[in-house]
């Protein structure tokens, strides 16, 4: 902030005070104006804006305190400094209580004056930077849109907005691909914690020991290879949100640790003894039947109740089919921009196929189908032939013809999709070895 952009208004009935302050600030390069009384000051405030007002507490007519009140009505951000020759604790306290930034007595020490001004400038600079940074963060944290207009998804939007402003633990439930992570991010982005990070933890992807170290961090030498102290996800999420995906997959030992942190918001790093306090909001997601897991003794009941405070159920896509056209439009727009390919719509018969399909992989599967169609399709529209094979089977996982090869191909694809392309699991279900499955995938060009 350049000094010449910084406006100072001096309000004092004594010309000598006005003039000397005017000269002093002019030499600092500020934009300075003076007023001999409150009425004059208010007139000047109507015509131009100022950052600081030096206001004499005793003036004929409206006094400095009353002028301060009027100034604050016009511009709350204007910093008022009360000046007086009649120093008293009482008037100082009154001025400060009524919003004065500071209180100085005549004559002012030049150093004190310089300090007051430089503090105000620094504060204004920080405020400006803060606003700019918040704007930048707002731009960066633009969460991918949750698309839909069906009553089911509208209910989800409502729940997101309701719970976002609180610090309540949220459990998001829904089938794979329904957008649980998107909902978690939307809750975070609409919360007061949005300027702090949201840290995702995929509980299903890491083994027990690794997850413990990932969550709580470790001290140097805590285990072989721990050469440095490392902060865990809980510490990284301090002030923000921690999102546990696939919470149903955590081990019993970790369930105990998690329960303790959830209850106390305290933990120690691995190999450390210092208690660390964190302020985090917990959001969990699972596609598992947690009630069943509790019954079977695989999930702690106390942890279940601790997590199941506010639950958001995400409907599977087959239960909100009215959203499919909107979602398709959204994905076409998205991939058309990413791929720079002018495909802007879908042909009615292709849409019909997509509408009749059951979408076991939910929105994720639909997004993948559109992405694939956009890759192989030609402008201006997605055609039936561009859709993945299993979708063109009228949505019932049936092959297009009754030839043995078609049936085998359709069946393999169905199992692969069911197992989310886990080759070992698919081969096991199909009763063939992994190598054979790979050969079939290549043969039928399934990938």
């Amino acid at each position, binding site marked *: 902030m350049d000094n010449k952009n910084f406006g100072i208004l001096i309000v004092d009935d004594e010309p000598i005070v006005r003039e*000397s302050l005017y*000269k002093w600030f002019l030499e600092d390069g500020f934009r300075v104006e003076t007023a001999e009384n409150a009425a004059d000051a208010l007139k000047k405030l109507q015509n131009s804006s100022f950052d600081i007002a030096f206001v004499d507490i005793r003036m004929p007519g409206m006094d400095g305190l009353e002028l301060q009140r009027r100034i604050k009505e016009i511009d709350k951000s204007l910093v008022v400094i009360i000046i007086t020759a009649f120093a008293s604790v009482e008037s100082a306290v009154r001025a400060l209580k009524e919003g004065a930034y500071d209180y100085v007595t*005549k*004559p002012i020490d030049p*150093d004190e*004056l310089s300090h007051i001004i430089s503090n105000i400038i620094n504060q204004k600079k920080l405020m400006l930077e803060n606003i700019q940074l918040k704007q930048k963060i707002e731009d960066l944290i633009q969460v991918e849109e949750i698309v839909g207009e069906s009553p089911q998804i509208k209910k989800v939007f409502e729940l997101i907005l309701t719970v976002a402003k609180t610090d309540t633990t949220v459990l998001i439930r829904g089938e794979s691909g329904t957008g649980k992570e998107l909902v978690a991010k939307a809750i975070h982005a609409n919360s007061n914690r949005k300027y702090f990070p949201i840290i995702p933890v995929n509980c299903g992807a890491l083994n027990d020991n690794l997850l413990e170290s990932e969550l709580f961090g470790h001290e140097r030498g805590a285990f072989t290879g721990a050469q440095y102290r490392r902060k865990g996800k809980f510490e990284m999420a301090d002030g923000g949100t921690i999102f546990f995906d696939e919470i149903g997959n955590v081990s019993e030992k970790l369930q105990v640790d998690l329960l303790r942190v959830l209850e106390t918001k305290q933990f120690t790093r691995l190999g450390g003894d210092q208690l660390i306090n964190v302020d985090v909001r917990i959001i969990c997601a699972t596609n598992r039947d947690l009630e069943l897991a509790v019954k079977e003794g695989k999930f702690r009941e106390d942890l279940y109740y601790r997590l199941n405070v506010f639950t958001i159920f995400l409907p599977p896509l087959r239960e909100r089919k009215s959203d499919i056209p909107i979602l398709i439009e959204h994905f076409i727009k998205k991939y058309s921009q990413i791929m720079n390919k002018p495909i802007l719509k879908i042909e009615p018969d292709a849409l019909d196929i997509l509408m009749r399909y059951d979408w076991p992989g939910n929105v994720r599967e639909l997004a993948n189908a559109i992405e694939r169609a956009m890759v192989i399709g030609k402008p201006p529209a997605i055609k039936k032939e561009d859709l993945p094979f299993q979708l063109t089977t009228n949505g019932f996982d049936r092959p297009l013809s009754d030839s043995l090869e078609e049936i085998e191909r359709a069946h393999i694809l169905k199992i692969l999709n069911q197992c989310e392309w886990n080759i070992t699991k698919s081969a096991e279900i199909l009763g063939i070895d992994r190598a054979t499955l790979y050969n079939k995938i290549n043969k039928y060009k399934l990938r």
Partner: protein
Amino acid sequence: MHIEILGARYHTSINIDNLCKTVSSIFNLEVKFKKVVLDFGLAFDTNRLQYNSTKLLELAINSGTLKNDGKSIILTDLDLYVPILTFVFGEAELNGRAAIASSHRLHNEYYGLPRNDELLQLRTEKEVIHELGHTFGLIHCSDNFCVMHSSSYVEDIDLKNLEFCMECEKMFLNRL
């Protein structure tokens, strides 16, 4: 154009020749010195026991003491103030023709330290250059080492150099 330094109750331990040479080298202008007598009593505040620098400047201008059509600076050892501030090291007409600088608070003794004439000389030169800088329209500079940096402590004066920073130098040359 030349610069005129007007000695009015200034401290005798200040080497005037050296002061003139230094000021001349910074502004690249001829510097002349002369002693003047002003009616200081008119600017004296009996409560504060200080001299009103604004009044002193007015007195000098109105009494016809400043005959120079260039820039003039009064050098004094009196304790100066402006009504709103407890003290000032000097005062100048921004982009005007007159200034005043005081060595009163530049003495080490003022702060209970041993006398140091060399330091007093250096501080006085910086203060004179600073106030003259204002008469050339230069405002306070954010560079701590530039002679145009604002000083409210004597330590601030010690920290800065005798010279203008590049920006102020450029501005000064433009204003000449």
